[in-house]
């Protein structure tokens, strides 16, 4: 990771902790986000994403640790108009039309974007004249996004920006977010959609139970989980025989197809072709981010040790 000083970092935290009563929402987050980076804060519900985001926005005060946004406190950064935010919860105020609301939000910032441009980019131009309390859930979400975008702030913090939005809407929103990133802005978004994190972020920070369990590009996170999957069509073979092959951790059957999860695909493939010449349609792929995610964060109800174990890279590799 690039070395970024406290003054120039978009966000820099050390040892961030926050509890609500007996719930340890955040327990020791160290994170540096460079200006211009697009970072996904990825984790299951209740992982501490929203609390972390709230701390970055000055909405929650950490119990311990430090946090700097462009070298200042979150509150100072917000007051200076350096941060634009879209919160996860909350609906829109009444007695305002969509265009008025976006205009209002833009007016708070020192260098806002043109409202028409933002409405176009977020697919809200055709509902610009509607009352904000007469929108569907997806429309309201787009308007909230438009409001955050209008800030033109150097750091955009988006908590679950595409929740409740249809597929087409999501595409539009991500296009808009990438356009923001291309202008050199820093973007931090929280999500539990793995594909979105992988497709739209330079870097994924995987967070579970209030801690960072992995931090890097999507491919790096996948690599941390050593397993690969081999799929093949192979009728009439006992699963036990497959499981006994070198490099194979497990086997499953779906009709004629078998799926082998492997710690060493080279060994497994060699043995597979050697032992079962009838095998065909062989396909090797890396674990999906979904699988990496499950492996790294462990079962949501699982114990602490499982997660710590899983977060050690390549711990399942032989040798």
């Amino acid at each position, binding site marked *: 990771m690039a070395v970024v000083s406290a003054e120039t970092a978009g966000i820099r935290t050390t040892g961030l902790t926050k509890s609500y009563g007996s719930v340890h929402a955040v327990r020791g987050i160290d994170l540096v986000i460079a200006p211009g980076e697009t970072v996904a804060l990825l984790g299951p519900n209740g992982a501490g994403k929203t609390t972390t985001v709230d701390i970055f*926005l*000055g*909405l929650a005060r950490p119990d311990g640790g430090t946090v700097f946004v462009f070298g200042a406190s979150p509150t100072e950064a*917000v*007051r*200076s*108009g350096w*941060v*634009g*935010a879209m*919160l996860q*919860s*909350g*609906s*829109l*105020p*009444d*007695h*305002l039309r969509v265009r*008025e609301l976006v*205009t*209002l*939000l833009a*007016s*708070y*910032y*020192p260098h806002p974007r043109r409202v028409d441009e933002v409405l176009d980019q977020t697919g809200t131009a055709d509902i610009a004249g509607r009352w904000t309390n007469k929108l569907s859930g997806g429309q309201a979400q787009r308007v909230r996004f438009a*409001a955050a975008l209008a*800030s033109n702030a150097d750091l955009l*913090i988006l908590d679950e920006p595409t929740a409740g939005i249809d597929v087409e809407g999501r595409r539009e929103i991500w296009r808009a977010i990438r356009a923001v990133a291309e202008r050199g802005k820093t973007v931090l978004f929280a999500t539990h959609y793995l594909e979105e994190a992988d497709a739209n972020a330079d870097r994924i920070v995987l967070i579970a139970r209030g801690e960072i369990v992995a931090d890097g590009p999507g491919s790096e996170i996948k690599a941390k989980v050593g397993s690969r999957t081999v799929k093949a069509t192979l009728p009439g073979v006992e699963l036990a025989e497959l499981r006994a092959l070198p490099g194979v951790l497990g086997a499953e059957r779906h009709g004629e197809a078998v799926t082998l999860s492997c710690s060493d695909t080279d060994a497994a493939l060699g043995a597979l072709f050697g032992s079962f010449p009838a095998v065909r349609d062989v396909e090797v792929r890396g674990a999906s981010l979904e699988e990496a995610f499950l492996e790294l964060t462990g079962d949501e109800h699982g114990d602490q040790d499982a997660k710590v174990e899983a977060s050690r890279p390549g711990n399942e590799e032989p040798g």
Partner: protein
Amino acid sequence: MKGTIHVRYEILRSARNPLLLGISWALPLVVFYAVAPEQRHALADCLTAPNGHGMTDCVSFPLYFMTAMAAYGAMWATIAPGARIARDRGKGWIRQLRTTPLRARTEAVAKVLASYLGALPALVLLYLAGVSLGVRLDAAQWFEMTGLLLVGLAPFVAIGIVFGHLVPPDAITVAEAGFVVILALLGGAFGTLFAGGVMLRVVKLLPSYWLVQAGKTAIGSGSWPAEAWIVVGIWTLCSVPLAALAYQHDKARV
């Protein structure tokens, strides 16, 4: 200026609330015309004379009721923006505003202006209605009366903000209505309750009493005593910091 759009939209949102129009502007006017014409030549709002015999300090019924209804409508108008705070808070909108550079000062100015601008039509409409039933004051008296009304409304602006930040959104209407109706009632907006005695001394501690009494400028300077300014001043001096505290408390909570 940076905050003008916020102030403008705050006023716009206030004006778009049909409740404001109905309760604060239309209703007092309707009640005034329903009651005042029949008592056009009656006297009202008298006090027991200092010697204990007879009545003094009376004004014409239209003047009394004009001021009473104007005050009632204006109390509603000034406290109403508090309900919007509670609704915005309930919707998480206040929380969203905390992530913007919007200054507390701008918020406060917007709320106060929206409150007062909502109250002005209530006053003007009732003044016009009063004049139509024969109320005549000279310019200085109108001016002085409006001055006390505007100052006397300050506690309602502040209390609206206190309620908005502390009362849950689903209870805000009841809280505000209860507050306004009780103060209006005790203050004599629906008819003078006390012409003398202990109770009069008690209700004289309420800003609503002096709002209703603002019409007494018509009968000379002595009838609008320093006591009015003191009571209204104390209410204002106490409620404004309370509003600031409620705002801060809410801010710390989000």
